[in-house]
């Protein structure tokens, strides 16, 4: 070492070697920090264990085929009990479908406006306001859906053609709730489309609208897909809005005008009742919960895979 060539340098080098760079306790702190990270892993395992151990209990009583047979109805809480989960899945798909019909065009329009049209200052002001829509407590949306959307608007407007509890009122509020997720994630994707692409299009005489829809939109498509997947995951996991406004009558209908029940709606119904431990009434909560967990898991992982692919393309 050059440091050790002079006498003073040798002293310094010795001193540095002696100096404890780790204080006692430093290792302990690291272990404590590691434990904090381990809590998150433990949470995942706990969720899986809790859901699947009782779900297995459920499948000892009810066969897999009975559960997934589209011909069976879902009537879990009164005799004769039947557990055809498709009715609940279709209920969930029903509200997902109609809420996306509302949120997808509006969310993408907002993303395009914020990314391609708005001035930086407008964006700084509008984005947090829009994000507030996702921050409204869902019990508030639930009340709005039932009292204002269904009772005050849809029932007088559509009369006898719509049920008091209906999928449409829940879907409208769900659509408003997920608007910022679609807008925000898509806008991030659009903002990271390289400038050269836009400038090349402008140079060829394209208008702002054409640049937005024919250049930026296709270039950001994987980010937009990820946004949609995340929004769907959010909708299928949302409980209060559907439990309050969509009703509790499982049905294989995709109509927005009918009373339905979603998977989460059923789970809340069981939680509110007094089902005894060990009964199928009680374990069905875990079977449906396990299915819901798997669905959101697949959607979230899917979104992450799509996002990663999109990052590779432009960095």
């Amino acid at each position, binding site marked *: 070492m050059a440091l050790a060539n002079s006498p003073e340098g040798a002293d310094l080098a010795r001193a540095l070697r002696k100096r404890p760079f780790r204080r006692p306790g430093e290792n302990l702190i*690291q272990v*404590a*920090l590691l434990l904090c990270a381990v809590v*998150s892993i433990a949470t995942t395992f706990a*969720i899986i264990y809790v859901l699947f151990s009782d779900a297995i209990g459920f499948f000892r009583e009810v066969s897999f085929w009975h559960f997934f047979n589209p011909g069976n109805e879902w009537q879990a809480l009164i005799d004769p009990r039947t557990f055809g989960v498709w009715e609940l899945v279709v209920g969930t798909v029903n509200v997902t479908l109609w809420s996306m019909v509302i949120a997808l065009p509006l969310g993408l329009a907002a993303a395009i406006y914020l990314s391609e049209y708005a001035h930086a200052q407008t964006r700084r002001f509008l984005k947090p306001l829009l994000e507030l829509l996702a921050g409204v407590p869902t019990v508030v949306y639930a*009340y709005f859906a039932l009292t204002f959307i269904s009772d005050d608007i849809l029932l007088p407007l559509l009369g006898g053609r719509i049920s008091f509890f209906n999928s449409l009122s829940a879907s409208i509020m769900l659509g408003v709730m997920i608007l910022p997720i679609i807008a925000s994630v898509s806008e991030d994707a659009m903002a990271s489309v390289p400038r050269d692409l836009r400038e090349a299009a402008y140079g060829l005489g394209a208008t702002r609208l054409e640049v937005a829809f024919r250049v930026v939109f296709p270039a950001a498509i994987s980010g937009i897909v990820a946004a949609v997947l995340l929004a769907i995951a959010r909708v299928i996991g949302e409980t209060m809005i559907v439990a309050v406004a969509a009703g509790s009558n499982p049905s294989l209908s995709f109509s927005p005008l009918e009373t339905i029940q979603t998977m989460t709606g059923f789970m809340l119904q069981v939680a509110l009742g007094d089902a005894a431990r060990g009964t199928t009434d009680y374990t069905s909560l875990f079977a449906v919960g396990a299915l819901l*967990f798997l669905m959101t898991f697949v959607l*979230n992982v899917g979104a992450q895979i799509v996002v990663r692919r999109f990052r590779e393309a432009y960095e």
Partner: protein
Amino acid sequence: MSASESTPEAVGLRAEGRVARRQAWSRASRWILLGATLLGLVVLVVLGIDNAITGIPALDWDFLVSYPSRKAELAGIRPGILGLIWVLALTVILAIPLAVGAAIWMEEFAPRNAILTTVRLNIANLAGVPSIIYGILGLAVFVRLMELGPSILAGALTLALMILPMTVITSVEAISQVPPSIREGSLALGATRWQTVWNHVLPGAMPGILTGTILAVARAAGETAALIVIGAAAFIAADPSLSFAGLLDSFTTLPMQVYSWTLQTKPEFRANAAAGIIVLMIAVIGLNALALVVRDRLRRN
């Protein structure tokens, strides 16, 4: 097209017309897109006004400080407000050290290998788990296994696990935005890694961590489904007691009260729900605004 229209002049005119049309569409699109952007907000504002008209007659001082009652005009949200403050304070105390600890480990100490990637993916997935599933977890682990019952402590533990992933993600982001030069300077002066983190990285990341925490609290404040599943009460006619024994008291929160009034058919109770929503929305909007102010401070520094 006939031959007379293919003279150079006619072609030029048609092209100009096309360009004018395209530009007109482009100009119009700005307003159409702005309208679509604002539509969701307009819906929320209209519903908010509708709600204010329904709720304000029921909203007075007595409503804030009274216990629930079978008579709608006597009922109030006192246990909901106190329960909410109590449970949120406990949630923050439980969740924030864990979240910041995990974030520090991930950013400052973790080896850059598959374990870290697994932890990251795991946290991203946990952030997408529906709140009702956290409720089931809380019911099985805290209420039943640890025998805490549907208590304030069980509620806070459940909410803490629920906001943990979101808080870790924002903390990681805040820590990663502290410039490396600050760490290098501190290490070069002989500080240990932990001294560097404690004295330099954490203070630099604090505004970001704070913003994330406030937003997470705003989310937990409105949570209803998870609390219903762990068995939190809808009506309680007593204040939560400020003691260690009080941690095991049953509790209610403002969203729980709003929910139970929503299910009532009498219009007077609906008015109570609307009044409760006004209070809840003021709290949530206040928290979001606070988060924005903190974030702006961060930008200015």
